[in-house]
């Protein structure tokens, strides 16, 4: 499974990569902001995207909206410090499938990823 991590913090990307590795996912790619991610998704065709909100050049929400114009299927999890309910709703309306608020424990991130993938699998089975 191909996964794309979008976050301007290298540290955050490393933590997410380590959590994914513990879950058995090693085909992990990175982008440092929304613009960088948009330039990569076409060729990469990831199966899952983890995206931060606050990033330079292009923030996460803008990326999500842009990406969802041509791709409604790829699951996306927003991993961000934005914790207010209105923000969460905004992100979900834009097209994210799940939401993780920083700071998070590795277990929580792991749980959200598993949840998202499991939900996707169920949807695909019933489709």
């Amino acid at each position, binding site marked *: 499974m191909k996964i794309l991590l979008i976050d301007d913090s290298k*540290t955050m990307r490393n933590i997410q990569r*380590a959590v994914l590795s513990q879950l058995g996912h090693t085909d992990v790619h990175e982008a440092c902001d929304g613009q960088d991610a948009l330039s990569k998704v076409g060729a990469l065709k990831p199966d899952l995207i983890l995206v931060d909100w606050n990033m330079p050049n292009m923030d996460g929400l803008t990326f999500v909206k842009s990406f969802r114009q041509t791709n409604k299927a790829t699951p996306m999890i927003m991993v961000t410090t934005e914790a207010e309910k209105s923000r969460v709703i905004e992100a979900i309306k834009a097209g994210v499938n799940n939401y993780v608020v920083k700071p*998070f*424990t*590795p277990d929580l991130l792991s749980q959200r990823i598993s949840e998202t993938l499991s939900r996707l699998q169920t949807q695909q089975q019933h489709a």
Partner: protein
Amino acid sequence: MSGSQDATPFQVMVSADRMTATLSLAPGQAREAFDPGVIELALDERGVSRSSDRSARIAEAIAAYDPTGQEPSAFVVVQGRPPRHAVDGRFELDAALAHHEPPDDARVASEKATVDHHQRSRLMIVKAGQVVGVVHAPQPGEDGVDVTGKNLAAKQGRPSVVNFDPSVKVGSDGVVRAERPGVVEFDEHRLAINSKLELPGYVDFSTGNVDFPGDVLVRKGVRDCFELIVGGELEIGDLVESAVVRVGGSALLHRGMAGREKSSISVGKDLTGKFFDGVTIDAGRDLIVGKEISHCHVRVGRRMRCEHATVVGGSVIVAHGAELNQIGSDGRVATEIVLGRIAELEKLVSELVAIRPAIEDRVAKLKDRLEQLQRATVKLTAQQAEELTELQFELATTEGKIKPIDQAVWQALCRIGRHTEASLTVQRVVHCGVKVWIGKYCAEPRADVKGPLKIWLSEAGEPMLTALSSGTSQPLSTICKLTPESRYLDLAALRERFAA
């Protein structure tokens, strides 16, 4: 050489082997006296076959003739071609083996290009798959022809007469490879790889150091400063001097080893010998000695079965019980016997136990810092949120290291428990000056203790002594000074700590 006897100014001579036809021109003649046609006829009469070359050579001879010469001039006008006989097929040993070059990593390389003569060996030892040599196919010959045009047949080539044993394989390209590791046995009739090496004499300068993957039999002994490395089993007929011996399997020394404290022997399985003096010994399984172990440092992976032998001086660490005849001497030579220990496993346990506090300390610091951050701020900045996430990640990772360490320690302790037994049986006497390390204690006899006796550890961890003649038992402390010691791990305490 036969020649014509008539009065012509020339003679035609054919050699006895009919390989040359020579024209001899008499001296003092004019060149015109020599008629090429007549010469040709004379050659024809002698049976020499015609060719344009022959005519040209006659003309050359006449042109080269010196009329003023005093002696006859001889010119070879027809030359036969000898047959080129075929070359028989043959086996050629690989150059490196033939020159007995030691392997690259065994050569002593230095700027001064010094050579370690111990490495020079006449033994051709090969690994499985190694090239041993090449079979050269017979090379065909070519017939010759004499001056009369008669065919001279060339000899036919014969294939190689070497018989290749199934232990070597001849490829379609003629390359011969060893099918198994061993020593090359080669003479003009046979090539084989013997997986057992038998040395009729000593391991010395005639053999060089020996490094053999299979079984080795040394009929005599091993000289000073040589190395004998054996992958299989080893048997040595005579004395092993101050050498280094390493054996993958078991070793049987019909005499013993006089190491003068400069030598070592390590054996994967059982080691048997009559005596060992000044040797570092490592027996993976049992050590069986007939007579004496003196001033040696010994490690035994299983049992010490030396019920007729004396141990004097040095130290012995034995995992699973020792049976000896006598320990120490009248002269109170310091001798140590350590019972029920597996040094390598205990070292591993020590190291694991030692790193644990550092990890626990780090975990405590991370928890403190996390709590500080969580208490100090109501609303986190993005940077603080990231720092918290990072701390939580590091905490999870660091805490996660403790469990595998505990499991590894527990497994090692269980293995030590299963494979060790602190027991010592002595038939004759334990002299003063001996120290016996058993359980948490070091026991030193206050006086010579006569056997037959058995020293063992009760379930409660108390050292006990049983007089085997009467069967009575008493605490070892009644006849020995018992000192609690921390030189070795307190395995009982560790088991209690890590059992949870």
